[in-house]
């Protein structure tokens, strides 16, 4: 059997690859931050059932749910410069073709999250029983008071576990970014492999980092979930 895996090389790779997890974090951070804001807008707009806008959102969500993220990333990467290139260049003097690939990957993530989180938020709000709203009305609260004091706190309780699963999913999906040339963990592991001729250790390190961070995130959301249980077990 050949020399596939060396523990020494593995230890070296840990130091070489770990810093690049920050690039993956960067993608997750922007995707979740802006994605969540967009998703709240999507959820509220869908609950309001405004004609035309509702149909547009239904098609948008169906596209985001029905097509692979890798394809969405590539469409954003090749499509955005073609559609908005001249506009952005004339308005801000930015040449989209020169922009780092990570920008397009993040845009793809944001659009994807707007759809997925939007549906999660909408479902969570709908899951609060109508009697909760009626009880608020019956004691003379206004609709806005009921939304912020009764319905949303209960909806958060439903949404948190799903939000956690979604966030871990986004973190996992950042593993696709290297195909567009984003310099993250995967891409670093590959480069190191090409330059040294030993690729396996690098990808094992990537796999372990993904697993450990996923477990930590899962634990964090579990604790968060417990905080919002309102006495339920």
């Amino acid at each position, binding site marked *: 059997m050949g020399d596939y895996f060396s523990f020494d090389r593995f230890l070296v790779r840990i130091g070489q690859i770990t810093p690049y997890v920050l690039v993956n974090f960067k993608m997750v951070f922007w995707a979740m931050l802006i994605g969540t804001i967009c998703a709240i807008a999507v959820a509220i707009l869908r609950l309001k059932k405004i004609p035309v806008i509702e149909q547009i959102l239904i098609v948008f969500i169906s596209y985001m749910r029905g097509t692979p993220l890798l394809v969405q990333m590539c469409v954003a990467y090749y499509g955005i410069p073609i559609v908005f290139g001249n506009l952005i260049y004339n308005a801000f003097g930015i040449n989209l073709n020169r922009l780092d690939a990570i920008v397009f990957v993040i845009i793809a993530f944001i659009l994807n999250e707007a759809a997925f989180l939007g549906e999660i938020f909408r479902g969570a709000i709908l899951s609060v029983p109508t009697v909760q709203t009626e009880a608020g009305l019956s004691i003379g609260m206004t609709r806005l008071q009921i939304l912020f004091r009764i319905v949303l706190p209960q909806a958060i309780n439903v949404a948190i576990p799903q939000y956690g699963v979604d966030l871990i999913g986004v973190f996992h999906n950042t593993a696709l970014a290297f195909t567009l040339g984003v310099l993250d963990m995967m891409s670093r592991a590959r480069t190191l492999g090409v330059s040294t001729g030993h690729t396996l250790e690098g990808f094992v390190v990537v796999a372990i980092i993904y697993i450990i961070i996923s477990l930590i995130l899962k634990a964090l959301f579990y604790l968060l979930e417990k905080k919002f249980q309102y*006495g339920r077990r």
Partner: protein
Amino acid sequence: MIELKNVKKKFGNNEVLHDVSLSVNDGEVVVLLGPSGSGKTTFLRCINFLERADAGILKFDEEEIDLKRAKKKQILDIRRNSAFVFQNYGLFNNKTALQNIMEGLVVVQKRSKEEARKIALDSLEWVGLKDKADYYPSQLSGGQQQRVGIARAVALNPKFILFDEPTSALDPELVGETLSVIKKVAKKGITMIIVTHEMSFAQEVADRVIFMDGGVVVEEGAPDEVFYKPKEERTKKFLARILQKDMYYI
């Protein structure tokens, strides 16, 4: 005095309320009886605008309100003068028993937190649940939840309280504790309209009994009259059926 005139309500093609009128004097306890689907609950919900009636007039405090065309301010005014006790309790799941009662006092009546807390604790004590003040609804039994629901209604000091089958979601052994609290409310002299299937309770607590069927008032009168000397055939049939099944008929 609350007066309701010619209330009508349809769900799609199903006419649930076909011209119902009712007036309730101050301090009077009125019990609405009738088979399921007779429109009692819908009628009650229309009074509190939880359901928008298709037609009808609500006269309260010398003000006449068109049930169909009521403005936001009028609706809020009625709701702030009344309270509603729900069949499935309707406690806010994200708030403790105490917070449930404080919510309306603080947010709607704009009382200070200390004052609201004091009133809330008093009314919890009044229904015998002071020790459960910091429990969430999910940690309370059905009977306890409903007693908190009643405490919440009473704490707001409303002119009248509407009870929508307050015991029909409860296990039989928890019905008694809830009914005795409702009797306590009745003794306070608050105007009450109660939808219930508890016959002996109705007989004991009601000043007047209304029998509804098919979206109309079939018969009304003092409890003894309606229960023992019903005039209408439909009332007789209903009573015969319900008394056969004892008091736990739903």
